[in-house]
């Protein structure tokens, strides 16, 4: 403690002469000039703050989410490189990349690179979604159109959880429900998938909102109570599209991305 006090005393000694000089100089300046100087600084600060707030920087993050095995990692590499390389296995970690979409590489115009995040679909890794949602400009929910009937309930639950998250509702994050693997003959059509998902979410709504208002998981209710649920009732925009990750038919995804990540 003594040491600190010694140091303090020494610093005081050094600073003292400067202090006196500064005080004298300030006293010399006429009052009006002093006040105008302070006022100008103040106004500049306020203006810069206003400008920064008004110019909302649009994020360029798009999230790929969905059940395990629906084809998100394949889609990610299609968007990035135009091919799915040698195949994929169940992801253990998210794949992230900021790049210009592969199909847009040959355009001469300068395009803003997109930040795409491919989140693992395994249920134990679901909490990772909350880390990326706040900065997202859009979400692509990938559904396996081939194995749809067996995974319908799980997909609907996941989709319901996403659509009722506070961040999604407040920021009106647009969602594209993508029916993947459509190159196979037995894949279901997007209309069928849409109707089934709406029905399942309707049932989920009934079982979850029967619970009192303090339900831990869902923080908002979906749709209009009393009417069967439809995606058009969501406050954020929900659309349905088709794609085929393996063959590279991903035009609808790219359109969605271009729509929501403006350069």
């Amino acid at each position, binding site marked *: 403690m003594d040491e600190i006090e010694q140091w303090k005393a020494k610093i005081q000694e050094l600073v003292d002469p400067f202090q006196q000089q500064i005080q004298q100089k300030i006293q010399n300046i006429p009052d009006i000039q002093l006040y105008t100087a302070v006022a100008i600084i103040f106004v500049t600060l306020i203006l810069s703050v206003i400008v920064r707030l008004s110019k909302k920087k649009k994020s360029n993050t798009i999230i790929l989410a969905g059940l*395990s*095995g629906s084809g998100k*990692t394949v889609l990610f*590499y299609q968007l990035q*490189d135009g091919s799915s*390389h*040698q*195949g*994929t*296995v*169940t*992801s*253990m*970690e*998210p*794949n992230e990349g900021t790049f210009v979409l592969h199909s847009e590489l040959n355009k001469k115009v300068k395009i803003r690179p997109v930040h795409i995040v*491919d989140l*693992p679909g*395994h*249920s*134990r*890794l*679901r*909490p990772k979604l909350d880390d990326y949602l706040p900065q997202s400009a859009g979400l692509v929910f990938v559904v396996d159109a081939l194995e749809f009937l067996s995974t319908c*309930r*799980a997909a609907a*639950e996941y989709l319901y959880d996403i659509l009722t998250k506070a961040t999604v509702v407040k920021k009106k994050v647009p969602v594209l429900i993508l029916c993947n693997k459509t190159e196979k003959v037995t894949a279901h059509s997007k209309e069928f998938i849409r109707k089934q998902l709406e029905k399942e979410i309707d*049932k*989920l709504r*009934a*079982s*979850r909102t*029967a*619970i*009192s208002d*303090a*339900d*831990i998981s869902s923080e908002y209710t979906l749709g209009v109570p009393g009417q069967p649920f439809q995606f058009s009732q969501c406050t954020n925009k929900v659309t349905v599209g088709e794609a085929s990750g393996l063959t590279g038919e991903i035009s609808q995804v790219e359109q969605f991305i271009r729509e929501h990540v403006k350069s």
Partner: protein
Amino acid sequence: MLEQLLVFTRGGLILWACREISKALQGSPIDALIRSCLLEERSGAVSYNYDVPGASYTLKWTFHNELGLVFVAVYQRILHLLYVDDLLAMVKKEFAGIYDPKRTEYDEFEAIFQQLRMEAEARAEEMKKSAVQVGAKVGGRKLELVGKGRSDQGGKRGGSSGDGGDGELGKGRSFENGHVNGGVREEKGSVDGKKELVTQNGAFDVNKLQQKIRSKGGKKTDTVTTKGSKAEPKKKMVKKNRVWDDSPPEVKLDFTDPVDEKGDDNVKFVAVDEGESMMDKEEIVSSDSEVDEDEQVEGDGNGETKKKGWFSSMFQSIAGKANLEKADLEPALKALKDRLMTKNVAEEIAEKLCESVAASLEGKKLASFTRVSSTVQAAMEEALVRILTPNRSIDILRGVHAAKEQGKPYVIVFIGVNGVGKSTNLAKVAYWLLQHKVSVMMAACDTFRSGAVEQLRTHARRLQIPIFEKGYEKDPAVVAKEAIQEAARNGSDVVLVDTAGRMQDNEPLMRALSKLINLNDPDLVLFVGEALVGNDAVDQLTKFNQKLADLSTSQRPRLIDGILLTKFDTIDDKVGAALSMVYISGAPVMFVGCGQSYTDLKKLNVKSIVKTLLK
């Protein structure tokens, strides 16, 4: 011969697969490995077995944590390849040399791989040859067993029992669980099984010896059939009263008042309404105490590493260039393990968790300004959150609605050892369901304990729900079946089946339980475990699951689907039992019982448990 060797990123992209092997793998062993082993924090295990009709593979893996790569080798289980570990290590080293994050094609690695494989095979051959000469290594003996025909039986028997001994010593580290089983023992089981049928009665009883070896490994081939045959005559005998000591059998004591069963219409109980069940209340987790916690943790970590190389560790933490080695992780992991064990986590589980975290951190570069202990802490926290996050939906109401649509009642069976709180918590679950406008029916299948039926009857009266009972000394499986039929008839949505408590070692009782579950095929098998249990939790859950799997007659046996943790209010912060149970069974915790009244039932809050465990 190696079936396949894959290199892929943690994000899921396959970087290189051995091109020479043209035969495709049956099923999807890699995905199964990732889902049931690596993501379940069992990556410290030695190998993983994958069975699919038509093939049985063993998988071995290694990580390169710095670059985020996984190397997996797949081979047939019956071929016992010794060079796989060696080969994986070499492949890891070579691949790390040519890896580039931007590249996705590594065709030139094929040539390097062939060379490495030949080298590894040659080394293994040499070892085998020396083993044949010395006669002490396991591998050589096994080749002899497989290669030779029916030669001197006594010699082979001696050899096989010797192998059993060696195998066990060698595989002492791998844990006895249905999943990760030393490939050695299984292979031996199949080989010896065939030989056993052939051999005549030898000098000593081979059957007993081999049964002993096999039963230690937990394999079910011949032991179950012999035990099954023993049990058959037992079943035909009439069930006798349990005699605890040498006292003469007592007169049957049944104080059930015959009037009561008809006379309960007169006593009208008002339906109990104690307010909202705590299941529906949101738990407020205080986050302002996190800052203090971190400082406390730092203080502890600091204390551990104070004397040894303080200056060097400080330097390293600032520069952040050190590659994490096993030796560096040792002290931090040991401290974490001790901390977990003081929180009542079973010793085995804490050990396995630490191994898994070590496997995922080895070789990683320390970020600057971080200490080893904080990195380990962060990795352990992530692992714990991953384990405790449910991997299937725990939304029971959704299941109830689905069953309602199909016109069947939703059946929940409560199983567990003696005195954990099955009947009490059954009543709590019934209360919660009633609050959500679901019609419930109870089934009193505890026909053994005195007063069990009356207990449920009282609960049913207070909650005003129907109860199906047949008194005492009846077969619980039949009672349950009739209860479900009754529920279908009177339109109840849910049937809650109460069973008698039983110890996991009690063979006849476990058989009876298995019969109940097989006969009725419930929608949810809920294991009730108390939070006070310590290392016994591991034993309870493994044995219950094992018996349910072994004694099941159907193709896909019903295992434990969920866990109900009881007496949570009696432990202050020693919440480790939850972790042990979830880790060992893979089933999520669906309810937590935290008191003895109807409203004391809540959901498990993963974040708060992890925080409490690592405090």
